[in-house]
């Protein structure tokens, strides 16, 4: 399937050179683009296809006090630079406060801009999210952003293909987040390097688009170039009627094309992994990379039993940083803060799952808990259902859209040693604020943990 999308986008092919790929959609945000626009100006180049480029502000944006000037003047300068660059080059921008503003990987699908069979890039590693629709979508650096702005193409070496087949019904309380954490725990943060992962199997087929996005989103945490899922009725139903989806007149032709993208029967992959979904449990990371993960019923592992010297040393460093002792049951780890948000888990389905757990309950004494919807549209839809009232009644803060505490570029940060159960994607040292301690979990576990004060599943409450 990845090969089909690739082959249909090759503009120029020559032996010994990377293929020149056409890019159907370029998503941009304020952090990784200012240097790219400067590069264009220095070289006297323009943006080739502003009509295939869309911008939003997400990484720096505050989630409260949107009507106030930004507290951080450097963030304000970066946000202003994006607005200036978009105006100068004629690019559609959903700025702070706009009804369509949000995390770049939430608004693309939401607007129907993300469609099967497309090539999609963004100066952000979590661009892999869009693969849930059967698009070939990958993160790029700022030099490549400049390249796409100038040419609407990218020279790329063809990646290898990896199949991850997930079969069986997920047990109650086990979610897409647990599937991807389990996979990363198994193959490691470099396990997918050089590959595009295609997620297949009955479990994937029965997942919602939100669940598929969660899995594809964290493909990068497995080191993969991209992740994708073959489009099906679930995909088409999500897309129908969205602002940029094909019109009624074109719908039939589009769906016919989308159906043709699925991997052919008997296709051979360079690497294959099979996961039994029926054996999975909710997962919690204990370390400082996403492969350092255990089932919630487990204990913090002992680095001394790891056979690889490098992994053992990495685990020792992680336990010191995280302030954890080997052998501690995961459920006994007390948590200071719960963050529900990020491009991994901030869509309406994620918020519904968390709200169902906290409805009629209250967060534990001393717990800081916040919900940051992925987009202003998700926020509006959640409010229309009354989810905001469920969260605030339970003691959560209900915020405006953005990347927020996933990476702490805005004021939403952890303090040193503050321990957070987070629905985001990276538990790296200092990711949510210098010295902060991040544990990655699903929205359901995050919500239950907020209520219990320690790691918990909804069934524990």
């Amino acid at each position, binding site marked *: 399937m990845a090969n089909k999308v690739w082959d249909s986008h090759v*503009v*120029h092919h020559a032996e*010994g050179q*990377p293929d*020149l790929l*056409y890019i*159907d959609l370029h998503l941009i945000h304020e*952090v*990784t683009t*200012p*240097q790219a626009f*400067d590069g264009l100006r220095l070289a006297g180049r323009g943006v080739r296809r502003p009509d*295939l*480029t*869309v911008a939003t502000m997400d*990484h*720096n944006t505050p989630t409260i006090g949107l009507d106030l000037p930004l507290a*951080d003047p*450097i*963030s304000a300068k*970066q946000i202003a*630079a994006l607005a200036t660059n978009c105006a100068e080059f004629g*690019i559609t921008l959903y700025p702070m406060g706009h009804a369509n503003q949000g995390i770049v990987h939430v608004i693309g699908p939401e607007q*129907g801009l993300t469609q099967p069979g497309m090539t999609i890039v963004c*100066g952000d*590693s979590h661009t892999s999210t869009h693969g849930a629709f059967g698009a070939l979508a990958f993160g*790029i*650096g*700022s*030099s*490549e952003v400049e*390249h796409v702005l100038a*040419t*609407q*193409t990218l*020279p790329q070496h063809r990646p290898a293909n990896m199949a991850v087949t997930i079969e069986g019904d997920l047990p109650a309380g086990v979610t897409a987040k647990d599937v991807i954490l389990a996979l990363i725990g198994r193959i490691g*943060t*470099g396990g997918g*390097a050089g590959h595009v992962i295609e997620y297949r199997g009955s479990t994937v087929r029965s997942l919602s688009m939100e669940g598929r996005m969660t899995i594809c989103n964290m493909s*990068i945490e497995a*080191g993969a*170039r991209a992740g994708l899922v073959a489009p099906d009725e679930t995909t088409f139903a999500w897309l129908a009627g969205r602002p940029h*989806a094909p019109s009624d007149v*074109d719908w039939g*032709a*589009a769906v016919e094309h989308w159906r043709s993208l699925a991997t052919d029967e008997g296709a051979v992959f360079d690497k294959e992994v099979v996961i039994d979904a029926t054996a999975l449990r909710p997962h919690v990371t204990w370390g400082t*990379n996403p492969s350092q993960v255990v089932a919630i019923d487990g204990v913090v592992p002992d680095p001394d039993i790891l056979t690889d010297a*490098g*992994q053992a*040393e*990495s685990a020792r460093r992680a336990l010191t940083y995280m302030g954890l002792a080997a052998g501690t049951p995961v459920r006994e780890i007390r948590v200071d803060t719960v963050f529900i948000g990020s491009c991994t888990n901030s869509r309406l389905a994620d918020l519904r799952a968390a709200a169902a757990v906290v409805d009629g309950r209250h967060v534990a004494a001393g717990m800081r808990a916040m919900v940051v919807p992925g987009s202003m549209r998700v926020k509006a839809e959640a409010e229309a259902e009354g989810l905001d009232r469920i969260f605030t009644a339970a003691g959560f803060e209900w915020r405006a859209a953005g990347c927020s505490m996933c*990476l*702490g*570029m805005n004021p939403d940060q952890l303090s040193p040693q503050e321990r957070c159960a987070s629905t985001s994607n*990276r538990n*790296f*040292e*200092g*990711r949510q604020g*210098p010295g902060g301690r991040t544990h990655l979990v699903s929205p359901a576990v995050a919500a239950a943990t907020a209520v219990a004060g320690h790691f918990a599943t909804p069934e524990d409450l």
Partner: protein
Amino acid sequence: MEPVRTVTGTAVPLRRSDVDTDQIIPAKWLKRVERTGFGQGLFSEWRADPEFVLNQPRFAGAAVLVTGPNFGTGSSREHAVWALLDYGFAAVVSPSFADIFRTNCTKAGMVPVQVPAEVGDALLAAVEADPSVVITIDVAARTVGGAGVSATFPLDDFTQWRFLEGLDDIGLSLRNEDEIVAYEASRPAWMPTLP
């Protein structure tokens, strides 16, 4: 970018695996709108520890970073490469690199030198034992050597050519302008566009 033909110099040994780009350049540094000045943010959280290897005077002035596997994992921020370059590194030696980081290196003029694990271990040990060890990376020959260790490293012909000639990637792609125009004419009209 400027041509890069050889890199010769002493090295800093960073004996850690899975070093992510959040460590190489923490998020607070990403608010800058310039391409320069990121060297001061390089490993800034780890540099708060006086024992951290970059703080040890015996490793000052190095041109090469020698490190563990899966270097540059995580965020796509090219700022990580800019920080390494700005600090004074011209090449990174590792048993494996994260894909986006490796690509960013080749766009910004930093040589990603991927070596077999045993070569990486030998170079780390040699540099730790003797900070005056000089490492030489020859882009044309695709070789890395020093302290009695030598190895070849993978670099595709196209990227090697760009390093050796210092070629502008965008200019190269625009030589295919006619093909880009022809491709655009073939795209289905129902594909999404912005106003």
